[in-house]
Structures are given as structure tokens and as C-alpha cells.
């Protein structure tokens, strides 16, 4: 069992949890993920490691409630336990050899972008962070990003905070104003990453995209997380989760990500219903 030492609501749909997992905290690197199961009948889901503290032996996860499992996870309180918590899985994000990088995060993906930006910054790299949200209410990690970025551009779709527009608008403006990046690292919704990669391809800037496909074991056994990169089938859990953004078949990834949508919606509703009954 893995104890939740801290739980904090970042916005109405996104929650942060710090979980006691000393072995994982000791090894974790930015870009890696864990697999958890909330209880003994639960589903295994991958969540990216948002932060880790080797001294206290804790790992931070940030999640958005999208399905039955994240709903059940959110039902747990500080001091309670998560049944299973395994990792760190996947390859760490490539951060060596970069002197100036644009980190582009979208929505809850910023939780994954943050540790990458932090590591780059600590390595002495010049970091320009662009974070995007639907509206002001959904903004997360603004202060954290400020601390590890030489420049931070915060975008909202509706202009209720920061600059109105998409992250690609901000990235394009920066590139056109003469900023020369060794790499762009992007993490967020697939559709956002697709357009970020299309933009950087025009300017021929090396781009890494962090993929978060459907996954079961996370160790290379099931093959559920496969995607096409440069025409070859790759497994996100052992070959990724980061891939060359100009090689990824985003349209296929978008299609595959919708496999269980109807099922998830139904399961989510059922779990919500169960919790409502419990409250009554």
C-alpha cells in the first residue's frame, strides 16, 4: 500500500497527490510515469510523475478526473492508501545537450511539462515555457513554472487570463521574433501536440512529444500502447513515452485514443452514481 501524504486541488478538475513510494522517488526522472491501481478491483492506469522528492521518498502525481479510475482515486483522502503504485516506467526525457528550449504544455499536460522545464533550468538551459488552458479557472502550476523559466507565456482559449489564443500562436510569435531553440518539448492533448509539431516542422526545430496512449502493464508486455513513429510500430512504455514529434502518426494516435471512450463514459457514470449513493 502507498500512503497519500498530501492532496491538493489545483483547479476544479485537477488534483495533486504526493504519494509515499521511496523506491520510485529514488529513481524517478522527468518524463517517466507510474502505473497505479486504486483498489483491488481497480484498473491499471498510467500517470506521469509530476515531481519527486528523493529525500522524503515521495512522488507527486497530478490528474484530471476523466474516467472511473481517476474518479475513484479522487475519492481517496490524505492519509489513505493507494493499492498499487509501480514505476518509474518509460525513458526519461532527453534533456542533455540543449542550451535553449521551448517547453509547451497544455492543460493537465503542464503537470508533465513542469518537471522537464525544472530539470532543464537546473542544468543551466534557457527555458521558455508556454502553457495553455481553456480558461482562467483551469490554470495550474503558474508559480512553479515562473521559478524554472526564463520566460513564461500563459495562454487561455477565451482570454480570461494571460494572453488569448493557442499555445501554437505563442510559439510562432516567439520563433518569428528571432528566438532560436535547440528543441521544443511538448506535452498536452494529442491535438495540441499535433499542431505544435506541424508548426516546428515548418521551422525545422527538433521536437519531442510526450505520448500518453492506452496502456496496461507499462513494461512492454501488452502492446496496447503501440503507435506509428516514422512508419514503424513503437511501444510508448519501453521506447517512449517521448518521440520525435515530426515522425509520429498523430492521426492514428488520435483514433486509437478513442477506443474505450464509450466504455469510459459509462463506467465513469456508474462510479459517480456509486459515490452519490455512498454520500446519501
Amino acid at each position: 500500500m502507498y500512503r497519500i501524504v498530501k492532496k491538493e486541488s489545483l483547479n476544479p478538475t485537477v488534483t495533486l497527490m504526493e504519494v509515499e513510494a521511496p523506491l520510485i522517488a529514488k529513481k524517478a526522472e522527468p518524463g517517466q510515469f507510474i502505473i497505479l491501481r486504486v483498489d483491488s478491483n481497480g484498473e491499471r492506469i498510467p500517470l506521469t510523475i509530476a515531481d519527486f522528492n528523493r529525500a522524503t521518498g515521495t512522488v507527486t502525481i497530478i490528474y484530471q478526473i476523466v474516467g472511473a479510475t481517476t474518479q475513484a482515486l479522487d475519492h481517496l483522502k490524505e492519509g489513505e492508501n493507494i493499492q498499487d503504485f509501480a514505476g518509474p516506467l518509460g525513458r526519461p526525457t532527453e534533456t542533455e545537450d540543449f542550451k535553449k528550449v521551448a517547453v509547451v504544455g497544455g492543460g493537465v499536460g503542464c503537470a508533465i511539462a513542469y518537471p522537464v522545464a525544472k530539470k532543464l533550468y537546473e542544468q543551466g538551459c534557457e527555458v521558455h515555457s508556454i502553457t495553455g488552458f481553456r480558461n482562467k479557472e483551469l490554470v495550474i502550476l503558474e508559480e512553479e513554472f515562473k521559478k524554472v523559466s526564463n520566460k513564461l507565456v500563459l495562454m487561455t482559449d477565451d482570454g480570461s487570463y494571460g494572453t488569448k489564443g493557442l499555445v501554437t500562436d505563442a510559439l510562432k510569435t516567439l520563433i518569428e521574433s528571432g528566438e532560436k531553440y535547440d528543441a521544443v518539448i511538448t506535452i498536452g492533448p494529442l491535438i495540441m501536440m499535433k499542431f505544435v509539431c506541424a508548426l516546428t516542422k515548418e521551422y525545422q526545430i527538433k521536437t519531442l512529444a510526450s505520448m500518453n496512449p492506452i496502456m496496461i502493464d507499462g513494461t512492454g508486455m501488452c502492446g496496447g500502447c503501440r503507435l506509428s513513429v516514422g512508419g514503424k510500430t513503437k511501444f510508448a512504455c519501453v521506447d517512449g513515452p517521448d518521440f520525435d514529434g515530426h515522425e509520429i502518426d498523430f492521426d492514428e494516435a488520435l483514433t486509437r485514443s478513442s477506443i474505450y471512450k464509450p466504455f469510459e463514459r459509462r463506467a465513469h457514470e456508474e462510479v459517480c452514481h456509486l459515490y452519490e449513493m455512498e454520500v446519501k
Partner: protein
Amino acid sequence: MANMSLTKNEMPAQEPQVRNQNFLEVALGYSKEQAIDEANRCLNCKHKPCISGCPVRIDIPAFIQETARGNFDTAYEIISRSSSLPAVCGRVCPQESQCEQKCVRGIKGEPVAIGRLERFVADYQNTYGNTKLTKPASNGHKIAVIGSGPSGLACAGDLAKKGYSVTIFEALHLAGGVLVYGIPEFRLPKAIVQKEINALKELGVEIATNVIIGKTLSIEELQNEYGFEAVFVGSGAGLPNFMNIPGENLKGVYSANEFLTRVNLMKAYTPDSTTPIQKGKKVMVVGGGNVAMDAARCAKRLGAEVTIVYRRTENELPARHEEVEHAKEEGIQFKLLTSPIEIKGDSNGWVTGLCCQEMTLSQPDDSGRRKPVPLENSAFEMEADCVIMSIGTSPNPLIKDTTKGLSIRNWGGIIVDEATGLTSLTGVYAGGDAVTGAATVILAMGAGKTAAEAIDSYLKGEGAS
């Protein structure tokens, strides 16, 4: 007087048209009377050829003689000396190509049903038995076993019986490896696997789940920081293979591993499971091994019309004869001498069909193997809304990528000395699918036992010097 019947006692089983709609065990097991009757077919011959066909060298005639006398506890003790998983082996071993193939009674008529007797003895013990395995006195040596599948469990069991303090590291949340994620409930009930694992725990074996060696901890750390004097790597087969044909990443295309894991480990077959799974109406399973049969029979039970697509003939099907028979009885179709060339999908990315071509077998080559060759202009399409690829696996890269100095074959298998299981690293042994590529439960157990013996002599040798 021996029972001279030419045929085995038939195995009671659920009716095919009933069982293909439930996940309860197919074969029901012998009664006491049937077991004694079958045991009496054993001639107890002097040269005991059956033992040489058993990868874990069970004293088969001895346990059968005790069974014939009704001494089921003693029979169990005899099996337990060699096997840590008798209830499992009695169910999933390919006996027809091992012990039973060597049985003298098989020369004229059917061999003694050794597997069914093993299963009976183990089940009898599980239900009524009082044979308690006693925890041996500790010899103070610590051994790490990576992976809790058949090879790891066999290795851990043998070492624990010798007094070693053994810790098994398992990447998943549940111990058992392929026995729990791969082999379906109707062929190997999970409660039986759990009982055998519990028996190992009673011997003092510790199981650390959710620990991924190569990620959470390295082999080097196990040896240097945690003080394990020897390590056995039984990490299994790993990455599923795909054919690299168009359409393989469409929605509704599964690897057999993913499909079986969802069904078995994550219990998608139970009505209250939250595990999502695509329940196809027309399912094509590509491949002809035991895993393909398991996937096909699971899909059938989830309500589909199922076809197995295999590129050779029935004679070359790598699956156990009994599994093929069971699958046929349950209504699984076989499309033989057929190989997929493309998977078709609709505009939403869902599978709609499987394009195949007909094959023929070539003249035997130098190795005597007849290769499947495509027939010209033979392409055709079959309707399908789910395709399960079951064409084998390649070794997982996690351990090779994180263990310096570990010699690996070009296809990814760990190189070991066959007689001992020793790898290129001092104190590190390996066995099972991680070494051989996908094989059988009993071969993996054999490799685990071999390594356990080698680890024992290695550590005793060190103690003496």
C-alpha cells in the same frame, strides 16, 4: 493385476455448448475411483522412461503406485519433491509430448494419463490433504528471483526447500506471471494458482509486487545494496510480435497478451469489472499456438463468432492437441493455410475485415521443415470487427538495457550455460522465456529448477572456500 485397458479413463468435462458460454473450468477432474483405476494402468516398469520425458524429473511411477493404493497424501509428497506447482502442471503441461510420449503403454494403445493423475493428486491435496510443507531452517543466504511466473516460482520453491531466504520481485500487482495474466480461468482457475503460491509463502518465500527490475531496482543494486548473493532472472517473454501489415494499429486489433490480460488479470469477463474490452461479434485470431487457442476460446465465451487463422496445416499447429480439440468442440472455426496481408477498417478507424491469402507448404528444406508459400492470386477478405494477433513475443528490453555485462543474443534472449542457467555475470542465473523465447510452463519450470540446483552448489562452493 494391472488394468490392461488400451484407453485412458476419459476426463469428465463440461459439455462444449455449455462451457463455451462460461469461464468455469472445462475439465472437471477424475473421481477417486477413476484415478485409482487409471493408476492401475501403470506397469511400474523398471526403466521408467516417463521420468526422462519430464523436465522437472518427477518420480512418476512412484507417485502413480501410491495413487493406485489410495495413498494420495504420499503421492502428493512424492510429486512435491520435484514440482512446486503440481495442480498447475497437471492442467497445462503438454504431457503428450513429454512424460506420456515415453510411456510404454503408449506403444499399443493410449499412454497412462499421467497429467490427469498429477492433477487429481494435487487437487485432492488442495481439498482434503493434510500434508503441510514445513518451513526449513534458514541457511542464512539471500536469493533474489525476478518474475513470479513458472520459472521463478519453481526456482524459488526449490531454493526455499533448501533453507534459502528467497524474495521474488514481480512487476505486476499480482504474482503468477503468465499463469494469472495469460492462461484463462477455464483452463487454469486462478484460485489454484493462488493456492500454490500460498504454499510457497508458507515455505518462507517473500513476494514483492509492483517492483520492476530494470526500473525500480537494478540487478546490480540487488547484489550490492540489498545483499542478494545470487539472482535468478525469470522475467518472461515480453514484447508481443506484430506482422507489420497495413491496418494493425486500427481500433479492435489486439495483441493476444493485451486481450488475455484484460480478460484474465483484469477480470473483464466478470459482469462487474471496470476493465474495458472490445467484445467483438466476429473475431479473427491470427496464430496457432496455445496462446491463440486461449484467446479464441475467451473471445467465444465473450459472445463472438471466432475463427483461427493459421498459415500452415492442422498437423503443424503448435498448440497442444487437447486445446485444439477443445476449441473445435466449442465451435471455433479454423481457417488453415491462410495468412493475413492487410487489416481493413472504416472511416472511424474500427476494424471491418481481414484480408488474407491462401498458402501452400513447400517441399521439405534441408532441415525437413515445410515452409508456407503464398498461392498466387489467392487474396480474399473475411469480415471481422476484432483481430487478435497471437504470433509470439520477443524478449523484453528492460533488463538487458539496465544490466551492464549481461550477454544477450541478437534477438534479445539472455545467453546462459544450458547445464546451470548461469549468465555472463557472476551469481546471475536466468531461465524460462527470457532465455528461450516463448515456450511452455513446464520447460520454464525445468529451467528454474536447474538454476536452483546450480545456485545451491555455487553458494555451497563459496562457503567451503
